[in-house]
């Protein structure tokens, strides 16, 4: 009986030690990454690759829109951004971090980070026809040679798990 209790105690101590050790190995994420994880990652994924045919990839792609004046505005008027459960300042920080982290190479050379005012103003005007605007911008990017024909960040996304 007593040995059983002792064994149980030892076991739970070992389990605790093991899980603490495990915790030590788990990476701590920053505040802005956490905002991304909670609000965007469910659809766009931690690796920014999106989901085949359903969600566009951010990685190596989203920055391209900043080459077009309408595209800069487009990025902050899509539903995922407009309706995010974050205040304007945190959303501005998240957008700027996200573009830098996942799509720095595609950003326009003269890209200026989004301001809080810009975000606030855009959120008042959610895009009613996201698909149409997106298709037009993609066509324009292709016309300018910034995107190869057939590439749209959506069905071109590889199937990933």
């Amino acid at each position, binding site marked *: 009986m007593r040995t059983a209790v002792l064994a149980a105690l030892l076991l739970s101590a070992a*389990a*605790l030690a093991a*899980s*603490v050790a495990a*915790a030590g190995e*788990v*990476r*701590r*994420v920053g505040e802005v*990454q*956490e905002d991304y*994880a*909670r*609000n965007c*990652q*469910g*659809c766009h*994924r*931690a690796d920014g*690759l*999106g*989901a*085949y*045919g*359903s*969600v566009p990839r951010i990685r190596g792609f989203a920055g391209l829109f900043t080459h077009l004046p309408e595209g800069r505005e487009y990025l902050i008027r899509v539903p995922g951004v407009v309706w995010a*459960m974050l205040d304007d300042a945190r959303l501005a920080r998240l957008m700027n971090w996200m573009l830098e982290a996942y799509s720095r190479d595609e950003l326009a050379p003269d890209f200026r980070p989004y301001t809080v005012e810009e975000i606030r103003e855009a959120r008042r005007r959610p895009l009613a026809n996201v698909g149409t605007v997106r298709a037009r911008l993609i066509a324009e990017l292709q016309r300018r040679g910034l995107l190869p024909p057939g590439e749209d960040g959506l069905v071109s996304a590889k*199937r*990933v*798990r």
Partner: protein
Amino acid sequence: MRRSSRLDRWVEEATRRIAWRTSRRSLLARLGAVLAGGALLPLLPVDRSGRFRQAHAQAFAEQAQTTDDTACDYWRYCAMDGYLCTCCNGAVNACPAGSEPSPTSWVGSCINPADGQVYLVAYRDCCGKGVCGRCPCLSTEGEMPIYRPQLSNDIDWCFGAKSMVYHCTAAGIVGRA
């Protein structure tokens, strides 16, 4: 524990019945009420929304355990909603044979009572097979109607999978908050 025949009936009914993410709640609630001697909430709080998140994660952690990942009160399941893949011969971070993890997920944060740390947990549906039907863990704490899609329980979250047929839900660690 002595079981009343009434409870037996409920348990039997509960195991016989099949539900996904919805109606099961009330049965569990009634069960919970019986088990806790009439006290109200069963231990299934979830919160995926900003405002209620912390409080529920805290309350859940206080009652959670860290050893049995096939029970609804396992610490990672603070925002769980669906059939546990761990009961379907999958794992907390693996889909059962023949099913496919959805590329998309929903993210909650749970406290691990073993170390008191907050972890971000990605709940991912396994797809492409019929409903597994074992170990339903459902909660409506903080659950919102489908016009707030990320906080709704009733949406099949197999977007981007080869087949969107829902099988079960797993819970992988994203990182420490």
